[in-house]
């Protein structure tokens, strides 16, 4: 048994605890007075406070131990990803400020669930062993299952919730099976010991099967092909603010976990696990980009685009996992992705009014003439997702591809860039519709100043990260030097 320090050392765990307190507060207050603004305000305050702790972890990572005897890693990657999760949740709360989902009078659980999901995500990215990882994953997943089914009485909404829950539970089970097999092969739950045990000798079939199952389980969460089928359906069926939230926060958390597992639990001496990951990445790049080409609605297109971006992120994880590229690449990309993808969903939310049948490209025609501000923001987000410089997405893609070249996966890198050509076509279809087509009707956007703030902040983030990429990179890279397991 780990002998715990006598007393409480909150340190690195503080961001998660702060969110937990905020979630509890919002939950109890919500039973006293059902008011969405109150829940939202508590959530924003809690997120801001948690961000303070997360940034402190980032600036000064070594100094903060953890408590409760858990394997809680505080380094550049985990603290940076925690910041990305907090930013994503903050913007999602702003986006849902006036949205009907948050206003359903009898259900004050919306904001507490968002906060709990973020808590789970933060636990996942800080996890130093499979136990914390699984706990975080379940906290995150159960909250998001409930959120994705938030639109009751709408067929698409119920389909989304059911699909996500069943497939997600199945994936969790496979992940747990993989963890059990890995434990059977190595006798350890924490990544460092597993890595040492696997590196010690040629790993047997048990360890490889365990690794493969872990990869499948996490691959579902990050929507690697062929485990991506749920993503477009769930993204379409869930209320748009929830889609915006889950498309970034779930992705950040799951990629954080995958990065940690790939770099610490799978030593470079076991090439078969990297090969499996490489095959998944190649499939994801092709399937995601080609799938997005066939979509006519913004939400479905962004759903497949999320799959495609999982491919680029997977490329960076693959290189970083082999120790041949910096994990900062993954962290940088994920914050950039948080800004641009959440921004794109935010504009979609304002344009579509959460109308389940409104997800068509026609809804975007003439937006440039009618609402130039929103159209410029959406153009920025889509161009950034497509990888046009000098926006955040360009450096994201460039860093990922550069990492692949660094690690010697040249053919994957070239495939990634060729797939990006396809991506340009499907993103610009929407840009063309906004600017080069006449509006068939007057465009009414949802009246919400808070959501406009979310769009504006996301746009500012997308542009600033593209113009000044080194600010975030240096911060994360500087903290990464102190990478250490804290018992």
């Amino acid at each position, binding site marked *: 048994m780990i002998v715990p320090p006598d007393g409480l050392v909150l340190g690195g765990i503080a961001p998660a605890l702060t969110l937990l307190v905020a979630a509890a507060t919002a939950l109890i207050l919500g039973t006293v007075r059902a008011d969405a603004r109150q829940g939202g305000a508590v959530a924003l305050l809690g997120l801001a406070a948690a961000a303070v702790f997360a940034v402190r972890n980032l600036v000064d990572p070594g100094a903060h131990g953890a408590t409760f005897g858990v394997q809680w890693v505080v380094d550049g990657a985990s603290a940076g990803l925690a910041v990305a999760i907090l930013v994503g949740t903050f913007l999602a709360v702003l986006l849902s400020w006036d949205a009907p989902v948050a206003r359903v009078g009898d259900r004050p659980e919306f904001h507490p669930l968002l906060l709990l999901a973020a808590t789970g995500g933060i636990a996942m990215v800080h996890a130093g062993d499979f136990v914390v990882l699984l706990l975080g994953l379940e906290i995150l997943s159960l909250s998001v299952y409930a959120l994705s089914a938030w639109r009751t009485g709408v067929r698409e909404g119920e389909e989304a919730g059911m699909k996500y829950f069943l497939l997600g539970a199945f994936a969790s089970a496979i992940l747990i099976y993989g963890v059990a097999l890995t434990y059977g092969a190595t006798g350890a739950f924490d990544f460092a010991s597993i890595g040492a045990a696997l590196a010690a000798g040629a790993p047997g079939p048990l360890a490889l099967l365990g690794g493969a199952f872990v990869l499948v389980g996490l691959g579902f969460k990050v929507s690697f092909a062929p485990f991506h089928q749920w993503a477009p359906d769930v993204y379409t069926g869930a209320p748009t603010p929830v889609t915006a939230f889950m498309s970034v926060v779930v992705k950040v958390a799951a990629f954080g976990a995958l990065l940690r597992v790939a770099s610490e639990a799978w030593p470079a001496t076991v090439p078969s696990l990297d090969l499996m990951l490489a095959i998944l990445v190649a499939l994801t790049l092709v399937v995601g980009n080609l799938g997005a080409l066939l979509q006519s609605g913004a939400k479905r297109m962004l759903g497949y685009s999320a799959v495609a971006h999982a491919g680029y992120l997977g490329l960076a994880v693959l290189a970083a996992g082999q120790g041949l590229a910096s994990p900062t690449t993954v962290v940088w990309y994920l914050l950039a992705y948080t800004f641009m993808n959440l921004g794109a969903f935010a504009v979609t939310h304002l344009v579509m009014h959460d109308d389940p049948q409104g997800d068509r490209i026609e809804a975007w025609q003439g937006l440039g003439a009618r609402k130039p501000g929103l159209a410029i923001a959406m153009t920025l987000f889509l161009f950034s997702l497509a990888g046009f410089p000098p926006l955040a997405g360009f450096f994201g893609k460039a860093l990922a591809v550069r990492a692949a070249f660094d690690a010697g996966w040249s053919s994957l890198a070239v495939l990634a860039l060729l797939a990006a050509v396809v991506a340009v*076509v499907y993103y610009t279809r929407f840009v063309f519709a906004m600017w080069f087509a006449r509006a068939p009707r007057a465009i009414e956007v949802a009246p919400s100043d808070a959501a406009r703030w979310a769009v504006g902040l996301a746009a500012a983030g997308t542009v600033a990260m593209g113009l000044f990429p080194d600010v975030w990179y240096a911060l994360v890279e500087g903290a990464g030097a102190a990478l250490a397991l804290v018992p």
Partner: protein
Amino acid sequence: MTLWMLVLPLLGAAAAAFAPGRLAVVGAVASAVATFATSAFLAGSGALSVAWLPALGIDVTLDPFGVRSVLVTTAALTMVPVVLTAARRPVDERRRYLTALLLMHTTLNGVFLATDLVLMYVFWEATLLPSLFLLGTFGGRGRRGAVTKYLVYAITGSFLMLASILAIVPLSGAASYAFADLLPAARALDPVVQTWLFAGFAAAFAVKLPLFPLHAWLIDFHRENPASGVADVAGTLYKVGGFGFFAWAIPLLPDGAAAFQPILLPLAAATALWGGLAATRQEDLKSMLAYMSLSHMGVVALGVFSLTPLGGSGAMFLLAAQMLSTGALFLIAGMLHERTGGFDFARYGGLAKGAPALAAVTLFALFAAIGVPGLSNFPGEFLALAGGFAASPWLGGVAALGSVVAAGVYGVNTYQRLYQGPPGERRADLRASEVLVVAPLIAGILWLGLAPAPQLERIDASAQIATTAAVDPTAVPPHAADAAEGPERSPASTALAAKGGER
């Protein structure tokens, strides 16, 4: 001084986008003029270097050395009449036009000045967006198709180039993406690796040159662009593929360039010939100009791929010169469209009687474009062809057929069909505002045509770096800035002086 080349047009774009009323136009025009005025002092000014993403060796480095300053100055001169023409658009279009143009100018200057490979790529891609916007917003009926075609061609090329750019540092072990760091490291690469990397660069540069058979986007681009010719000139300025080969791909990867020369040189000759022949058969002015421009690009490519200092210098000079001559012709085409409402030659004929000044200006620009000695295109075209002859007499001959013989045919034909023959409806002559538009271009054409030597000397400094390695891979070139002042006359200008005497 160097940074101002980006700041001034950017300020102009901001003014055009946000300043109220007429102030927007004044700001835009003032920034275009100021950019040109500043660019005149660019040649001697220093380099600029700021860290951007130092962890990966990506910096903001700008250096107006050699050919870079020549191209920036000429492009800035061409932008003045373009902005003036755009300022005459209706009020509701003017703002968007001017903003897009000046943004394009900013990024174009970036392409020319950047000496960091990744920064060059950033500007390269960013330049695409304003010209797409102009075509998509103000273009003709087939604009959606033209935009998509343009985009797919350009993006496929540039993403392949991005692959080469990102790979070149890990493969060569260079310290950073700066040209000075890359040069020794990349040249030491294995020839096979160099060939692969060169293929990536060639994909982007050949599309933007454009090189036959990748030129399909160019014709649609010009056909669908708005009638005023403004966007066409912007597109002409953006045909920087030859510059990319000359300033980046060939010096960094000489073995790759040598491996590709047997493919690229015939394609260049084919481009020159095909463009020239097709230009003689066109039934409307704008298509004729598009093919003429394609033919010029074939000659540029021929000079660049000859891998000789002579051909390279000539090609870059022609690239600068055709900005002025082709630019002038596209703007004149816009003026003619204003008078007759169409581009097909059938509408025209006998205009010289009513509009003698317009006819004279057109003839002057056409003469410049077909390479009449004493005007801007001649020195470049001559040297590029000379380089081509040196590399392969046969292909040089083919290209000359397209660019000199066919040029005579389409040049004279065009003038005849526009201005001579039975006088038709009487059209207005050159207006005062239009004189203001064509005057800078005519001055520029004369300037480059009558005194090419100073520009050629600056270009030669770059050409030496571009081609020494192709001849002798062990020769490490002198630092760029040191080579700027050469005491003796450069080989290109000497050769030109000799040839000029013969004529």
